[in-house]
């Protein structure tokens, strides 16, 4: 894996719902720890932009989509369990 490739994330949240706030916090923490300075996060509120959710088939919130590097990955939930999340994002070398 090219360690230099930047990670592009899009996080779908539902307004200021508690689990959405948790997901934002967890994602920020994860990126700080594992991907310092090589990530970008876009947060989409499905209440404000429902057409996004419809077009991208985002039915559950919060949902994290890793747009890059490929492959595109989708993780549903508050991202509270760090190991499976890292594994899914291709940062699995850290998990045992």
């Amino acid at each position: 894996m090219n360690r230099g490739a930047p990670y592009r994330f899009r996080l779908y949240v539902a307004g200021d719902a508690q689990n959405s706030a948790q997901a934002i916090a967890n994602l920020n923490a994860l990126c700080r720890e594992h991907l310092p300075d090589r990530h970008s996060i876009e947060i989409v509120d499905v209440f404000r932009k429902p057409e996004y959710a419809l077009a991208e088939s985002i039915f559950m919130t919060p949902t994290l989509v890793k747009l890059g590097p490929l492959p595109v990955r989708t993780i549903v939930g508050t991202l509270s369990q760090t190991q499976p999340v890292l594994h899914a994002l291709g940062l699995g070398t850290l998990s045992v």
Partner: protein
Amino acid sequence: MPQIASTMKSFRTRVAKTSPKAPTGITGFDEICGGGLPRGSTTLLVGGPGSGKTIFALQFAMHGARYCKEPAIFVAFEETSKRVKSNAESFGWKIKELGPSKLFFLDAQPMSDRVHSGTFDLSGMLAALEAQINKMGARRIVFDALDILLALLPDEAAKRREVYRLHDWLREHELTGLITSKASQEETNCIVQESFSFMQFMVDCAVMLNHTVVQGVSQRSLRVQKYRGTSFDENQSPFVIGSRGIEVAVARTSSRVQISVTNERVSSGVERLDTMLGGGYYRGASVLITGFPGTAKTTLSGAFAAAACRRRERTIFVSFDSDGAEVVRNLASVSIGLNRYIKNGCLCMVSGRTISGSAETFLVRIKALATEHKARCIVIDPVSTISSSGNELTAYGVAERLIDWSKTMGTTLVCTSLLDEVSSHLLASSPLRISKMADTWIHLNYLVQAGERNRGMSIIKSRGTAHSNQVRELILNDAGVTVTDTYTAEGEVLMGTLRWEKESAERGAKDMAEVAGRVKRVRLDAEEAELEVRLKALQVELEAKQVEKALLVSTAESREGVLLQGRSRMRELRGADTAISRQK
């Protein structure tokens, strides 16, 4: 429904001006629950795998979009919308024609590679749906296989929370919602899954779909478990997935009793039988012909079909035992020619063997065929087939609905029913107990006498008709079907050769008596003539005697005259006087 159209745009401020029921368009179901699903609230549809949940839900959505001006959204959690649509094509619903502005499909199948981490909720989907609802003015929404979605949620509490969220959301948007969910195979009446048990309490209407296999025959049924604020048919109703979607079998409800009763008679095809029945069957009546194998049930029903075709009435002949062509050939041997009516399209022969499935399927197929053919007369030979193994329990209901249906349509229905040796002892309990419902019941049987089997026919009942209560003999030969009187002697009914013998013996005796009478008459004539001759001779003799007597008198007189003359002459000569004048 113009009022729906006017309120469609402003649905958020909609007052419950319209009917409280949203019709599903499912034949029979709307009748069960008095018009449809509860408008503006949620219905739960539960059933095992393959019980028809998706078809039910899609039919509800399609009907709203197409006929009720209620655009619908179909959220598919299990199958892809493409598959749902292509499955629906076979019902001729033309979903693609409707377009997404009327019927919108949302694919919401969980992706297998999706990773779950921590809690989540359905806000995303509801937000997406809300946008779509506002865009198209949707009034109906279907969540197909919600259990799939709920299975992703980590615990019961989360499931419960999301179901409540969904329910509140549906309420808030005043949508007529239909949620389908799987139930465990064994017991569809009580849902094992905990999340659905409370859902049943929550929703305003719950419908159970049941699919069982009885002796290899698939039987589907449906039951409305609850329906707040309305009366409904609480019984299990059988249904089939027919060619145009779900068709629920319903007994005749009060709204459907509009049978036009007529006094018109239709010929049974056998002249003498018509007179026995006082003119034939009633139009729209249900006629049952029972009998053992080979008692000419098919022939009698064939005669009816031929008579109907002669009147140019479109007729359907459903034959289960043999192929249509075989029936035609066999009937031709007794001068019942059906071929020309098949050729001119008046008669439609249906081989019942091509219909497979439950009794309910038979009914649906027969109804469809009859409607297609615009049949005024239907022959089902034999109707007892529908109670074949696996269908024993449902067949009675099916037969009842068949009769109800044919009455409503004003179709004259002739059914034959096979009696086997066992049930023959209990004539009244003929298979299906259809005999109770039939208007006219003709029974055919064999009478074995002197090494001969002869066919006897009797009318067991015929409602509203004076009918002969005598057993008649049914004679089949190449001239056709005829009914003759039987010979009753010393309390015994004679048929066939015995009848013929008895009849010819009687004829002989009659001839003898006639001859004897004639002889006696001749003898009497002769005696009379002889007496007359004697009378004449005596008369002649009498006359002769009379003449003789007259002669005798006249001679005596003349002699006296001469004597007197002589005496007066003597007196003159003697000159006597007074004494003579005193003598005078």
